[in-house]
């Protein structure tokens, strides 16, 4: 266990010492929120006419889950996208260590093979939580930005981070399986950048599933990003849940939990296999 912590600290140190990475990881989520939030804002597409305000409110109410504005709806999706993106790159140091030769140094040490992958996993989760918190604060400060529902409390905040963590654990292991096999960073970059945006668009992160054509809605409904986004949205907009909302959030949590568990089991088996002897 202690070696996992040491290797995690190593990864976090490297993150802090790389100014470009650190800058990008702070600015990127903010840019997403500001740009997506304003460019895609569906309510701004409705022309002004007498009574148009009422139509906007109605659309927000019926299609956007009762969000007071689009950024409140979008914030949940952006939080999910943020942690999924981090999950994709979490295995990057492993690929670099392998190509530089440092991995051999780790593999001859008397440490468990899982310590190598677990440490990267934990450091990525930590980074994700820090960046998500920053994103939440920025969303709150934006003009016309995030508005928490009246009942929002500490438990709801905990729920938000729990959903984000489950989502990121699942994607972390999926991409870790790839990272232990990739011999070049380009492999990871190619797959990550190919999958990233499609995963985002085929989910309820940006727009409600109800507005999608059937085939896309079918994909979005099984996409774990949608489940996490829906949970976070419920918690943010409504807070202290009860009744139907509570059971819907509970079933989404169960879905995410199963996704994380299956990916973890597969991920541990596959990545230990990828790190075994030549």
């Amino acid at each position, binding site marked *: 266990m202690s070696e996992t912590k040491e290797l995690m600290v*190593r990864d976090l140190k490297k993150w802090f010492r790389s100014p470009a990475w650190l800058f990008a990881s702070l600015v990127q989520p903010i840019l997403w929120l500001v740009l997506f939030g304003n460019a895609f804002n569906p309510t701004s597409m409705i022309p002004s006419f007498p009574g148009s305000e009422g139509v906007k409110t109605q659309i927000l109410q019926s299609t956007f889950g009762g969000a007071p504005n689009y950024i409140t709806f979008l914030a949940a999706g952006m939080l999910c996208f943020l942690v999924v993106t981090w999950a994709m790159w979490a295995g990057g140091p492993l690929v670099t260590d392998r190509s530089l030769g*440092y991995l051999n140094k780790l593999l001859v040490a008397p440490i468990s093979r899982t310590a190598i992958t677990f440490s990267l996993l934990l450091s990525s989760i930590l980074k994700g939580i820090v960046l998500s918190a920053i994103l939440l604060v920025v969303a709150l400060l934006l003009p016309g930005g995030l508005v928490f529902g009246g009942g929002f409390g500490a438990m709801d905040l905990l729920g938000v981070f729990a959903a984000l963590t489950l989502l990121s654990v699942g994607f972390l292991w999926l991409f870790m399986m790839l990272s232990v096999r990739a011999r070049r960073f380009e492999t990871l970059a190619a797959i990550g950048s190919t999958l990233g945006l499609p995963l985002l668009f085929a989910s309820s992160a940006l727009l409600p599933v109800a507005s999608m054509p059937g085939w896309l809605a079918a994909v979005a409904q099984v996409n774990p990003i949608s489940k996490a986004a829906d949970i976070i949205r419920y918690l943010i907009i409504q807070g202290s849940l009860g009744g139907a909302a509570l059971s819907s959030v509970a079933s989404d949590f169960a879905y995410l939990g199963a996704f994380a568990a299956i990916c973890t089991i597969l991920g541990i088996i596959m990545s230990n296999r990828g790190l075994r*002897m030549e």
Partner: protein
Amino acid sequence: MSKVIEARGLTKVYPPSTKAVDGVSFTVDEGEIFGFLGPNGAGKTTTIKMLTTLASISEGSCEVAGYDVKTKQGEVRMCIGLVPQDAATDGDLTGMENLILSAKLYKVPDAIASRRANELLDLVGLKDSANRLARTYSGGMKKRLELITGLIHEPRILFLDEPTLGLDIQTRVAMWDYINGINRDSKVTIFLTTHYLEEADSLCRRVAIIDHGQIKALDSPSTLKASLGGDLLEIQLPEGPDISAKLSLMEGVCEVRRRGNVYSLRTANIEKSLQAISVGLWKLGLKMEDARLVRPSLDQVFLNVTGRSIRDSMVDSGDVVVARARAESARN
């Protein structure tokens, strides 16, 4: 003397049928510096990988520090240190952080780790650079840091894979001093691979010459050189027909090799043969344009056991230039 490595018929087959190491057997004594000498691709790194649990053993068996490498990997890992051929340190960490991280992976208690880290940094002259990021180090400093990170947990056996690859000559000689010093002071057994003849010659108590995955000769450098059976006289003659056959009949000449108009004559005793050779040549009406005595070197041993020069077998390698320059400066 007790044996810390015992390899019997070690073989590594990479699928589908590449035999990187082919039935290698040897033992390493406690406390000695043992070298694997051979050209690139001879199977040196693969052997190290098998000995250090990085690669599985296809055939044969091996004990390291008394533990079977196939079944007791955890125990073997506790007893060994490895300095791989390429980066063994993290450039984004300082020299000190690299050492401490390595110590923690081997569960060295904190107080001991920091005392030892300071000692080791001092030993290789890196004390003043301890808190700089390793990526700002020069090539020689990096190699020294890599060397001591392999020692932080006081292993019984230290494996060095090409410890001076790519270093300039002065830096290489300085590394030899450090390696010798460490072996002398801490009594750690050192297993190293190299394709530099001078390195094997100046560091190793015993050398195994490896080529195409097989050990061609194994002994101390001096015994290997003595096995050549005498001195080598290189003479340059004017352009003309091959007179190897005539040369080999001269008194005391055991063997003749010819490259163009340069002949290498192996003689049991050069003092006795020199006169016979010069008289013989005078009778043939030939005059030596150049002559020199070549003292037996590991290069000749290599040539003798593999049939080619170690430098010729590495023409693709950029290091050949350095190796040649070094060999030439040593000869002149």
